[in-house]
C-alpha cells in the first residue's frame, strides 16, 4: 500500500480515478495517462477536506471475497424477488426490522446499508441519528431473528474485519 503524502492524500482513490478515466475515454495513449493522472491528483486535493476520515483496508483479499459474495447474493436476490413479484399466489409477509449495528464508522455503515439494499428482499430504510441501529424493510420474512443473524454473519462481520480491525 502506498503511504499518503501531502500532495497525494488518498493514493487508492487516485488510482481508482485514473483507472476510471482510462476506461471512460477508451484509450491508453500516453497523453490520456498524463491527463488522467493529473486529474487523479487534483480532484482529491481539491475535495479531500469534505470527507470523513478514510478507513484503511486491512485485508484486501477478504474485501475481494466479500465483493464476490455480494455479487452472488445479488443474483440470488434477484431470482427471489422476481419470484415473489411474479407469483400470483404469493403470501407476502412484509416486515420492518430494527437492526442493531455493530459497525461504528460512517463509511462502513454506508457500505452495509447499500449491501442490504442490494441483497435478498431487504431495503435499508433509515439510519437512526445516533448511528446505532438501522431500520430495514423486508419484503417477505418468516423469522426476524434469522434474518438479523444472517445479515450479521454474512455482511457485517466481514466488513468489520476488513475495515475496523
Amino acid at each position, binding site marked *: 500500500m502506498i503511504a499518503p503524502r501531502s500532495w497525494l492524500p488518498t493514493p487508492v482513490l487516485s488510482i481508482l480515478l485514473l483507472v476510471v478515466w482510462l476506461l471512460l475515454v477508451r484509450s491508453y495513449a500516453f497523453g490520456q495517462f498524463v491527463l488522467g493522472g493529473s486529474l487523479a491528483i487534483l480532484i482529491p486535493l481539491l475535495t479531500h477536506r469534505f470527507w470523513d476520515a478514510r478507513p484503511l483496508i486491512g485485508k484486501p483479499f477478504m474485501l475481494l471475497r466479500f465483493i464476490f459474495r455480494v455479487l452472488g447474493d445479488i443474483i440470488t436476490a434477484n431470482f427471489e424477488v422476481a419470484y415473489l*413479484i411474479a407469483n400470483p399466489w404469493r403470501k407476502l409477509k412484509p416486515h420492518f426490522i430494527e437492526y442493531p449495528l455493530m459497525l461504528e464508522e460512517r463509511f462502513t455503515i454506508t457500505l452495509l446499508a447499500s449491501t442490504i439494499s442490494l441483497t435478498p428482499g431487504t431495503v435499508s430504510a433509515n439510519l437512526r441519528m445516533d448511528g446505532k441501529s438501522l431500520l430495514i424493510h423486508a419484503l417477505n420474512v418468516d423469522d426476524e431473528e434469522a434474518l438479523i443473524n444472517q445479515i450479521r454473519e454474512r455482511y457485517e462481520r466481514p466488513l468489520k474485519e476488513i475495515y475496523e480491525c
Partner: protein
Amino acid sequence: MPVIIEALISLLLVAGGIFVFIGSLGMAHLRDFYMRLHGPTKATTLGIGCMLIASMAYFWSVDGKPDAQELLITLFLFITAPVSAHLLAKSGLHLRLKHAVKTQGHPIELRAEEVGEKPVPHPDKGHG
C-alpha cells in the same frame, strides 16, 4: 459471429428484459410504497447488468477487442441504486406513508396512530 456467442447474447438480452419487466411490474403492482421499492432496486439492477454484459459481449465479438465501459455503468448503477432506494424509503418514512396492514414491526418513525386501516389505494386490484 459464432452461433454460441449469438445465442448467449440473445439469452442475456431476453433474461435482462424479463428481469426489468418483473421489476417494473413489482413497482406498479405491490401493495404499499415500501414494498414497491423492492422491485426497482433489485430486479432492475440484475436486468440492466444482463443487458450490459450482452452489449459488452456483442461489441467484443464485433470489434475484436474487449471494452470495459459497460462495467463502469454497472458499477455506477450498483453504487447509486441502493442510495436512491434508501433516500426514497427515508422520505417515505418521513412523510409517514401508510403501509400494508399485515406489515409486522412498528418502527418509531411510524407511530401507531398514523398508520391507516387500509394500504395505499391503487387503481388496480393488486394481489399481494
